[in-house]
């Protein structure tokens, strides 16, 4: 009777192997599908149990923190309401996550490497997330929002020396606390004014004449021009077979590039861009961060790259593409589509002696015991131009504010450098998009800004956007 017993044992071995196979299926092979199964509440419940760390402004005020909710869970509140909805984002189990809440989720939930988690467990430490300290300045943000006064638009300000983003205002905004209610959240999500959309990083706008700063950088640093090189500014001229004229068809004779920037002479800069050609323009645009997502510590899908968008804005191409009219691109027209963040980076590179610093919102990660776990170090993104070129372009931009189109941005006692822009959105109805990019002070700059307002009735960069930039810079420099 021993043979059948042995065979019986073999059968049991096979049966247990089948059990191991099915256990592997649920623990390994199908695990992801099971974890993501809509009926699986575990992930959601586990998230609610975590005491997320707070997010703080540069002045240490809380921009987001967790408060106890029923059933030993935590929920998120945003003390300043609608102040920093886009930068901070939100974190709700019912609606998901965005902004810094999403980008720094691991840190905020205290998820570190496997080893330190095990040590924490052994030490019986409670699972509390780390806090995120940002560079955001509530006072300056408030000024930006007040100045925008409900008009759709965006204001972004950063420290050109470090890349630290201090203001990130996008209008219309929303109050993050309202997203706790799923119905309100869905309604906001479907709102045609797209309040959840971060206009500083996600909106592609025609940059208008602010782009002439990019052309100027390429012209000066390539050695092909100096601020004193002269170009004839008659109007109109023919670019790519179509006539191009100056604002109000103003006529200029042979004028220097400095003067051409000061008075934003289209025909001069179109000729310069055409002369430089796509290769040089591409080189400098690339160094300034065009054609790629800016390396901001912000979720990838809430950032878009700037550049030429063809096929009805569907395809991103560079200046060498056959569909690009390089002359018009050089004055910020054509199919250019840029984010306010990108234009702030342009001003920032000029301000910082030609070195573009990586923009970042986070400053440091501090653990619940107050120890700094990780400090976000300023990092160079690229050297865009020589210090000499940066100085020369900076002086040209200072002229814009001193005696040109940007005088509205002048500050008492502080020299400001800037460039206006007024993109034509709808010529028949005189709908424009005013822009202003600037930095200050001209010597040892501490702030760079980009301001834009959507669809104004005939507004100019110098009259609509420059005053906002002025107020924001004033607050940050105070």
């Amino acid at each position, binding site marked *: 009777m021993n043979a059948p017993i042995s065979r*019986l044992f073999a059968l049991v071995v096979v049966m247990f192997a089948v059990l191991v196979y099915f256990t592997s299926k649920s623990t390994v092979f199908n695990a992801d599908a099971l974890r993501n199964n809509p009926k699986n509440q575990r992930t959601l419940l586990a998230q609610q149990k975590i005491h997320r760390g707070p997010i703080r402004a540069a002045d240490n005020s809380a921009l987001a923190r967790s408060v106890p909710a029923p059933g030993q869970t935590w929920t998120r509140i945003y003390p300043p309401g609608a102040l920093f909805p886009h930068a901070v984002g939100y974190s709700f189990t019912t609606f998901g996550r965005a902004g810094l809440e999403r980008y720094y989720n691991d840190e905020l939930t205290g998820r570190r490497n496997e080893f330190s988690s095990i040590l924490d467990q052994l030490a019986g430490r409670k699972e509390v997330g780390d806090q995120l300290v940002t560079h955001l300045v509530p006072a300056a943000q408030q000024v930006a929002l007040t100045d925008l006064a409900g008009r759709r638009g965006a204001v972004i300000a950063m420290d050109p020396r470090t890349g630290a983003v201090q203001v990130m205002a996008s209008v219309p905004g929303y109050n993050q606390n309202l997203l706790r209610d799923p119905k309100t959240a869905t309604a906001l999500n479907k709102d045609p004014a797209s309040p959840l959309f971060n206009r500083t990083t996600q909106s592609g706008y025609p940059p208008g004449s602010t782009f002439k700063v990019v052309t100027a950088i390429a012209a000066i640093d390539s050695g092909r021009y100096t601020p004193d090189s002269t170009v004839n500014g008659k109007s109109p001229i023919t670019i790519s077979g179509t006539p191009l004229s100056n604002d109000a068809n103003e006529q200029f004779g042979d004028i220097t590039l400095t003067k051409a920037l000061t008075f934003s002479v289209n025909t001069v800069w179109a000729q310069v861009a055409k002369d430089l050609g796509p290769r040089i323009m591409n080189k400098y645009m690339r160094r300034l961060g065009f054609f790629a997502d800016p390396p901001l510590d912000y979720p990838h899908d809430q950032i878009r790259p700037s550049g030429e968008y063809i096929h009805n804005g569907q395809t991103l191409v560079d200046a060498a593409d056959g569909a690009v009219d390089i002359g018009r691109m050089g004055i910020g027209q054509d199919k250019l589509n840029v984010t306010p963040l990108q234009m702030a980076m342009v001003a920032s590179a000029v301000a910082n002696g030609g070195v573009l610093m990586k923009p970042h919102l986070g400053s440091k990660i501090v653990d619940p015991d107050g120890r700094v776990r990780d400090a976000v170090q300023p990092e160079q993104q690229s050297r865009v131009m020589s210090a000499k070129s940066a100085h020369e372009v900076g002086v040209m931009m200072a002229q814009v504010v001193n005696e040109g189109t940007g005088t509205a941005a002048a500050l008492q006692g502080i020299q400001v450098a800037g460039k206006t822009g007024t993109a034509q959105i709808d010529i028949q109805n005189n709908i424009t998009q005013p822009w202003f990019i600037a930095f200050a002070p001209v010597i040892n700059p501490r702030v760079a800004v980009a301001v834009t307002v959507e669809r104004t009735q005939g507004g100019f960069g110098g009259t609509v956007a420059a005053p906002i930039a002025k107020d924001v810079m004033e607050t940050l420099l105070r």
Partner: protein
Amino acid sequence: MSARNRELLALVPASLLLSAGFAAVFIQRHELVGVQGTNRLTTLSLTYGAIFLGLCLAVHVFLRLRLPYADPYLFPLVATLACFGLVFIYRIDKTLAQDQARWFFVGILAFAATILLLRDYRVLERYRYVIALASLLLLMLPLVPGIGETTNGANLSVRLGSISFQPGEFAKIGIIIFLASYLRDSREMLTTQGTRVLGVNLPPLRQLGPLLVVFGAAMMLLLLIKDLGTSVMFFGGFLAVIYVATNRLVYPAIGLSMFAFGAWFIGRHTAHVQDRIAAWKHPFNDHLYNVVGGSYQLAQSLFAQADGGIFGTGIGQALLKLPSGGTIIPVPQTDLIFAVITNELGLVGACGLLLVYLLFVERGFKTAILARDSFSKLLAAGLTAVFALQVFVIVGGVTKTIPLTGVTLPFVSYGGSSIVANFVLLALLLMISDRSRRPA
């Protein structure tokens, strides 16, 4: 080294496992962090470990005196399983763990009583019909109004006062004893005699008759109380014993085809079975998921295992309670304890546990092979087969290998009758082993 010394040595890992397990639960609960930094970890977990080790040592000494030649690994393997069980039940609910520890004590008493009272287990052969009848009566108990209990559409248990027990656990041993003793007598005839029909040797009905009557009655009763899991165990055990007795595949083949037909027939006509099969096929179906007694249990079991992954979340880390206070996995301490273990120890821990069961089964079959007489062989093989099948039925159900039916995970699940019955099973195996290994 003598068998008993090896047993003593093999008990060390089990008690270490227990201490480590309790230590992990305490750490998770932050119970070691006293206000004054008093090290409650060492005292508390070691106390639990020490009590358990004491019990194991008592059993060991008892075995030294009564069954000195018995297999040295069976008891340490059971102790290891018991460790898994105690740690996890403690982790799920402290008070349940105290109950469970008490049941272990009762189980050990039953174990000792079996060995002391039954001096020679072969007397059981003489009472085969009494035992068969008693087993059938046990299975009938849940149907008696007033004491029968209904859970999940099946009435498996009996409540007497404050104690609830599942008679099926004991009946399984009784039925195996009956089968073993009956087949010892008739196995010769079953293998040699019979009428040839269409080239197939059919078994002689006269010999098979009483067997089929008793067994058929047991199956009918199980169907009446809707205990599908136990009926599968019984049927499998029956086929295993008859196969070992005859060494002819035709018997299990006929049995399996009968089972297939029976399953099909019953499946078509019993709503309870249909529900279980539908829940198994489509655990995430909206309707089945939400209906009472539907697939919610199985779905939660799979979610828990997915949460565990390869290495698990660690003891005490799995999510068992909802914020509302309810449990996310229904009855985690009995039917779904394997899911909780996989959640916290991962695939690695689950395989470890299955390996312990497999080693136990291996020792059980080894005992059967070493046994010198047919009754001992059949009894040891039958008990081991039923034990292995029980593991397969519940682990298979929890992992979606087969439809989920409620049987306990031997020595691990919470439940008095399961522990006591399985300790009696262990006693019988050890007695058979001692007898066969005793020097002539």
